[in-house]
């Protein structure tokens, strides 16, 4: 499997879309236009996109509180997402979920999740469905470094292993869980933990789309071929605070700036495809413009969108009359 020109354009567009989306949400939040808790994925784009490019509608992902990027990567409609984040009726979840609960099961996006470690068990379920119904599907759980210490996560590793489920666990290690450093909170290492459960693990630079894409390809193929679960340990950085409002004082001086300057995922991608003449700058500039417009439009429409009303409060609790 090779990346075609169209794949590369699509990958770049998705990454840019995530970046623009998050930057816009950041601005709108700072302006007081977005309520609640919002966790942004900016800086981590190559991970979500590099992985989800291998997935199709048979496949499922479970995300985290930092879910916007995974949603976009897996194919959720960004307009519906923006409406959702603004709490509007036309949001992907009718305004009932908000940033932390965006989901679209029709594209295999099983939900952002407000519970750290909530996703891995669910992904065992999607993997079990795929295995039982022989859909050929694979299920991927995104797990933060902080979430990698949660018992639910370990249990899921083991369950996936002993049931030989078509699952991949992606530990997105951005170095911090809130203000707590992963070098401190993670006893042992992700790779050694994977080995502890008899799973292979690949460590990968999460700023490098191509490295992620390649590692993900192997892990997802392995799962699809019935060879069981594996782990990707993806090292990356988040550009904004843990949530919007976080002063990020716990990071080292210049830490974020250095990453932005030296290994921004979009920049690395651009440089690489230009250097290797796979795409040219103009292709990407066009995408940049188109995406920017698209996001501006989403924000404008979302702001103007109608809110749900009292009639919506008690719907969607149960499937049948209650």
């Amino acid at each position, binding site marked *: 499997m090779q990346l075609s020109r169209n794949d590369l354009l699509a990958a770049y567009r998705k990454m840019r879309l995530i970046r623009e989306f998050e930057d816009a949400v950041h601005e709108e939040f700072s302006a007081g236009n977005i309520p609640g808790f919002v966790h942004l994925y900016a800086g981590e784009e190559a991970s979500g996109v590099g992985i989800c490019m291998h997935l199709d509608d048979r496949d*499922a992902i*479970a995300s985290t509180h930092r879910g916007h990027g995974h949603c976009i990567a897996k194919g959720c409609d960004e307009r519906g997402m923006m409406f959702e984040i603004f709490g509007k009726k036309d*949001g*992907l*979840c*009718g*305004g*009932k*979920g908000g940033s932390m*609960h965006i*989901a*679209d*099961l*029709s594209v295999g996006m*099983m*939900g952002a*999740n*407000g*519970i750290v470690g*909530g996703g*891995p*068990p*669910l*992904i*065992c*379920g*999607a993997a*079990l*469905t*795929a295995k*039982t*119904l022989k859909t050929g599907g694979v*299920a991927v759980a995104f797990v933060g470094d902080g979430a990698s210490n949660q*018992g*639910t996560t370990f*249990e*899921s590793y*083991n*369950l996936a292993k*002993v*049931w030989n489920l078509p699952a991949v666990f992606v530990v997105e290690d951005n170095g911090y869980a809130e203000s707590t450093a992963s070098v401190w909170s993670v006893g042992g290492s992700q790779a050694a933990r994977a080995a502890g459960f008899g799973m292979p693990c690949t460590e990968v630079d999460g700023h490098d789309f191509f490295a992620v894409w390649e590692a993900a390809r192997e892990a997802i193929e392995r799962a699809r071929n019935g060879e069981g679960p594996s782990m990707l340990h993806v090292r990356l950085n988040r550009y904004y605070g843990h949530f919007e409002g976080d002063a990020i004082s716990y990071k080292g001086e210049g830490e974020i700036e250095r990453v932005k300057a030296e290994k921004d995922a979009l920049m690395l991608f651009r440089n690489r495809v230009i250097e290797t003449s796979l795409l040219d700058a103009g292709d990407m500039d066009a995408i940049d413009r188109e995406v920017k417009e698209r996001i501006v439009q989403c924000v404008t429409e979302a702001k103007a969108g109608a809110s749900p009303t009292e009639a919506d409060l008690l*719907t*969607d*609790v*149960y*499937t*049948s009359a*209650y």
Partner: protein
Amino acid sequence: MPKKSYRQAINEAIRQEMARDERVIIMGEDISGGMGAPGEQDAWGGPMGVTKGIMPDFSRDRVLDTPITESAFIGCAAGAAATGLRPVAELMFVDFMGVCFDQIFNQAAKFKYMFGGKAVTPLTIRTMYGAGFRAASQHSQCLYPLFTHIPGLKVALPSNPYEAKGLLTQAIRDDDPVIVFEHKAMYDDEGEVPDEAYTIPFGEANVTREGDDVTIVAFGRMVNFANEAADNLEKAGISCTVVDPRTTSPLDRDTILETTEETGRLVVVDEAHPRCNMASDIVGLVSQEMFGALKAAPQMVTAPHCPVPFSPALEDIYVPGVARIEAAVRQAMGKGH
């Protein structure tokens, strides 16, 4: 009608639904048994033998023994339900909910609402509850009030074999997450159970007897105690209506209100601890909705506010029994009874 045990009724419901719909699978610790072991396969069928014999007929592909890992497998069942299977997971004792509650109340129960209606989560959790087995504090709790509190969950408490088969079948066919509470002291109880599959709709109470003087609302195993108390009271000239709501969520408010209005007296029997439980839930409902219709103070017969004791001497007084129900009815009837 053929007589079957509560255990058999459950086993039959599962088999029939598995035969009917290949998306139905079951999972749990030792629900078949012998996994990876050199000896007998299907060695257990769960700790009470409830699911025994299903694996040989449906294979290990659809009868999944699990490691001891409730968060992972209950969550797995939730995720499988959201993606196209209809899993029936066994939480061996409801007392173990504390290691996996998140996957039930924050995940499965809320998918539909959080996702704006677009999720369907046909998850059934079978679990064992109740005291009387000398199983002590961590294996004897009721806890259904906790599940009843949570929007998005449905909660069923079958009180006999007929109810067990019908409610479990409905649970499996239902598109919402349902927790079915099986009382561990009832597995050997026998009763008439049709051979063919049938469902009992949720939210429709069963009035097991009609009387003029007092309405007794009871849950799960307590329905049997209430019927026994009513038999005894009949001889003393007190005539009781006994209502088995069958499901605490949804709750058949109408039947409770109507039957209580008819008798004007209410006794609620709830094996759970007394605080924030079904007894106060029902009394609250009746008091707010039917003020003035009661002729006497409503009575709540519940377990006390203490963990379940091990010693048989203590457990026997811990469990709300027939005598306490009778006393509560007499209390409701007032002086002279």
